[in-house]
């Protein structure tokens, strides 16, 4: 437990020492900010009340681009610089390293998500009688769970590959695939639809969390996806030793 904490703390310090973290934060705030103000203008034009979904949905989508940028080096860069050798000969377990790295990423993105709260807060001032609090809470819970799962996938690919750029693209591809895996089959109404729909990350997000519904099944889905990925990450780290 203590090791996990030590590693995650170090991981955050490492993010904050590199420009990538600030660029990711900047990109997120900029794009969400643009979307926000566009929506406000549109709402004024049509005198309709905007709801918080239009902030939360793009955040979820943007994570597909941002998470791999943060996680890509977590193990791959330590391998490249050789520090993995020092860490892996310190008395810590491989799973402690993986979970510590994952937790560092989760903390980092949790802070980013907190920053994006300013937009719903502003929105709340604009409209009377305020925004739909239920959607806000469930939407952010969904984004958080989604992010935790995304980060675990990023850590996994980083432990699998020796190159952080390769880890970025692999994570990005996996996240994008998982985000829209059921789309083609839904369009074509082919068989296997149900399985693909279950695996589709967005199917556990749009219909429920983003509509103000917290379904335990979706919570379990994201948590188990995270668990599986952390397990695979540990296994691939262990496999490195045997290479």
């Amino acid at each position, binding site marked *: 437990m203590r090791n996990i904490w030590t590693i995650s703390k170090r991981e955050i310090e490492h993010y904050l020492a590199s420009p990538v973290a600030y660029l990711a934060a900047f990109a997120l705030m900029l794009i969400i900010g643009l979307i926000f103000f566009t929506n406000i203008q549109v709402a004024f034009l049509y005198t309709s009340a905007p709801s918080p979904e239009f902030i939360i949905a793009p955040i979820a989508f943007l994570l597909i681009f941002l998470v791999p940028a943060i996680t890509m080096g977590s193990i791959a860069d330590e391998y490249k*610089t050789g520090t993995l050798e020092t860490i*892996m*000969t310190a008395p810590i377990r491989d799973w402690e390293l993986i979970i510590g790295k994952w937790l560092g990423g989760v903390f980092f993105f949790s802070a980013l998500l907190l920053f994006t709260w300013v937009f719903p807060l502003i929105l709340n001032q604009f409209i009377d009688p305020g925004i739909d609090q239920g959607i806000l809470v469930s939407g952010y819970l969904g984004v958080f769970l989604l992010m935790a799962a995304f980060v675990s996938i990023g850590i996994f690919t980083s432990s699998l590959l020796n190159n952080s750029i390769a880890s970025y693209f692999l994570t990005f591809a996996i996240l994008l695939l998982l985000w829209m895996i059921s789309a083609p089959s839904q369009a074509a109404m082919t068989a296997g639809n149900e399985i693909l729909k279950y695996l589709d990350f967005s199917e556990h997000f749009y219909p429920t969390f983003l509509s103000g519904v917290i379904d335990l099944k979706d919570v379990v889905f994201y948590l188990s996806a995270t668990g599986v990925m952390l397990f695979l990450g540990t296994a691939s780290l262990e496999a490195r030793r045997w290479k």
Partner: protein
Amino acid sequence: MIEVAGLSKDYGTRRALDGLNFNIHKGEIVGFLGPNGAGKTTTMRILAGYLPPTSGIATIDGKDLIKDSLAIRRITGYLPETVPLYNDMSIRGYLSYMGKLRHLKKVDDLVDEALTRVDLSDRADGYIGNLSKGMRQRVGFAQAILHDPEVLLLDEPTIGLDPSQIHEIRNLIKEYGKQKTILFSTHILSEVQQLCDRVLIINKGRILVEDSPEQLQMRLSGGRNVVIRVNGNIAPLMNAFKKVKGVTGVTPVGDNAAQVIVQPDFEARPEIARIVLKEGLDLIELRGADLSLEQIFIQLTAEDKSSASTTSTRLE
């Protein structure tokens, strides 16, 4: 303290270690010597718990390398060959991070102590990325001794250092080795002579020789090396030298000097002197010299190469 039996390691199809056997006792400083690619780093990595062996057994302090990996890693300090460090951390930050991962009590005090030992206290808050190679090496050393380990594994600790820093690191090793067990690899033979109680010479993943530096030199020099220098042409004397009792080989060195190898327990010098004088030449130099460890090392690995190639040709 360190016991290694039949240790082998394959990287894919390449065999890096081929049934390594050796023991290192508590309190010994042992030098690990061998040409490039001999398997020194691989052995260190296995002992440090980074790589598992393909086969064979190794124990440190009676604990099994694989089953008690964590327990072993707790009492072991390791300086990898490449001295990997985090460039974005300060020296103090890095050491206390490693100390926290080892659950050390009073981390700050131990960090200060280690920094004093490697003489980096004044740079403690500087970034690792700005350090020179020698300073990085010392940070790596500080990391390895931070938790006062029973066993210290140092992979080429003096490589790339200037002479005064080499001297400092050697002093550190010597001092630390007074109480603890140290295995360090090197290419510098004089280092082994200065520091080690024992030498392990490894080639192609096997131990070639295991001895104290002095014994090694005596055992392998095949006696002594006598250097003769005269003020004239030495060539006509060569045949006479060969007939002296105990002489096994004569090599001319230039026109007026020669090297004579003499078996142990023979004293050939008086007879050689008489031959020179009888021939009417003046004797300018006549001295006995040990074969250097360098000579022995080259000789040994060359012998190993030729024997290996003969076996392989026989196999084909």
